[in-house]
């Protein structure tokens, strides 16, 4: 429980040598719910894509479980794949496959379980996210909220140590969004999974966040760290305060 599960050191991220964020240093503790927040276009999703190895880092290191994802070889990457689950913004379910097949794919891939066992696990994971009985539905036949939950079931299929969420509440109504937040809290509590969430949804980040970093696009690096609620009480700078209060205090001042 002592060593951080994710550790970023002097990380520079961006596209085609154009840096979006510089000198990012942060640690994610085991069992934490860690929020990456910031304004639109500040590089939250880019940071997430770098952390999960979809995008090469310009420089620096991201250690996940002691393995540097920036310089990991194929074997280490395969290992990390089984330890990390990812819920994409749109769910990213394979549209040609039923929910059952979607969730079963990583299991077939990385375990030698029998078909019977896989069937049981898939049904259980789908039931966990409230989709019992939807095994034979295709992604196009269910709602956006259900698609996200099914994506979560797939992310949880291999019992990962870390689950990454890319804007979980995007495109959901307040109630579905709340349900997903509750689900995140429960998974964190019951399974002890470390959770990293990219979001700018205030209600959601106050509701679930235990720890956070704030990416500031004006100075191109992290300008605040800590529990979002504490950050609201003792804001380290005006931009964080404006972000966490939807700029209401800003308006009052002027």
């Amino acid at each position, binding site marked *: 429980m002592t060593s951080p599960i994710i550790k970023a050191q002097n990380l520079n991220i961006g596209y085609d040598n154009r840096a979006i964020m510089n000198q990012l240093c942060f640690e994610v503790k085991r069992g934490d719910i860690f929020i990456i927040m910031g304004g639109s276009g500040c590089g939250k999703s880019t940071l997430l894509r770098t952390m999960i190895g979809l995008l090469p880092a310009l420089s620096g290191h991201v250690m996940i479980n002691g393995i540097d994802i920036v310089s990991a070889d194929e074997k280490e990457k*395969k290992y990390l794949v089984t330890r*990390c689950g990812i819920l994409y913004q*749109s769910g*990213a*379910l*394979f549209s040609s496959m039923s929910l059952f097949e979607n969730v079963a794919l990583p299991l077939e891939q990385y375990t030698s379980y029998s078909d019977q066992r896989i069937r049981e696990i898939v049904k259980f994971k789908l039931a966990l996210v409230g989709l019992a009985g939807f095994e034979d539905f295709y992604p196009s036949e269910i709602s956006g909220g259900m698609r996200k939950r099914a994506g979560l079931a797939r992310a949880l299929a291999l019992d990962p140590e870390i689950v990454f969420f890319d804007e979980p509440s995007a495109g959901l109504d307040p109630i579905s969004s709340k349900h997903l937040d509750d689900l995140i809290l429960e998974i964190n509590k019951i399974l002890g999974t470390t959770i990293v969430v990219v979001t700018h949804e205030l209600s959601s980040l106050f509701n679930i966040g235990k720890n956070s970093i704030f990416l500031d696009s004006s100075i191109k690096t992290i300008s605040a760290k800590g529990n979002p609620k504490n950050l609201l009480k003792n804001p380290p700078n005006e931009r964080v305060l404006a972000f966490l209060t939807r700029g209401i205090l800003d308006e009052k001042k002027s």
Partner: protein
Amino acid sequence: MTVKVKGENLILSGDLTEKFFVSDTVIQSLKNKKHLVVKNEGISDWNQKSVIALYTGLRQLSALTDIQINNLPEGMGHLLELSLKTSPKDKESDLPKEDFLEILGTKGIFVARSVESGFCFFVQMIESWGRQIRGESIYRKKDFLLALEDCGPKAVMIVSLISFMVGLILAFVGALQLKNFGAQIYVASLVTVGMTRIMGAIMTGIIMAGRTGASYAATIGTMQVNEELDALQTMGISRVDFLGLPRMNALLLSMPILVLVSDFVGILGGCFVCVFLWEIPMGEYIRYCTAAFSLQNFLVGVFHGFIFGLVITICGCYFGMTCGRNADSVGRATTNAVVYSIVWMIVMTGIITLICEGFGI
């Protein structure tokens, strides 16, 4: 309506709904002022058009001048204030212009990179095929069967229809000339050699590029938009294996068979013209067909089909997987897949023909 300038004041009055504009002379006279107050002295009527006219005039000044708005009608004042809040970006003419060499260089680098990445993809496909032979590749048999159904049985009808037409046209055009020598019967040989050696394969290739190649690019491109390709990658599954292999296997298997169907139906089309139009007995037609048929030509045709299958899969999958993340890119990927498939099929035909010439086939 009137627009007047008095010191640092721009004074508006009257009905601003009709033919209202801020003239260049007015703007020129305001240009060097630090402050400007827009004043209302009896505006009787206004609409959004008047605000647009006012904004168009004032936006040039807004960067250097501090514009204040004084007692304009409420909505009008707010609209103007809101629009003048953001100062316009630099004009386009301020951007550095690219000269001819720079454009040429950028285009050249782009083309070189595209060729390189296309070739890399080809190598990846071949590697993936190697993994399949060693039994290490990851893909679902169901995907292969679905792809096979799509480019096999479902394509037979359209391939047959087009090939029948091509056989018909070949026979008709050929017979018009051969008739001059009273040699219509050789139409049978013409159609047989033409269809089996190359026309069957080319027509099948073009149909499959438009039908299947486009569908590969669109499907995989949409998966890119939907983050499904990212999901595959973060699950540690090779996208070339998972998406490319079943499609390649399906097309490589079905193309030669479709070419065979096309050959046969094309010859049938020729028969139709000969029997019904030129009144050649069917028996004669078949006899000349069998005489002109050579296994060598037929196999060259089928080989063409096999290579075209490879070209179509690679173009379709490559443009799908390098697609951008919006609807427009999917359209472009689809177009590119079809265009490049057809171009490369023609190039490959040339190469195969040269090789066959070399070996005297």
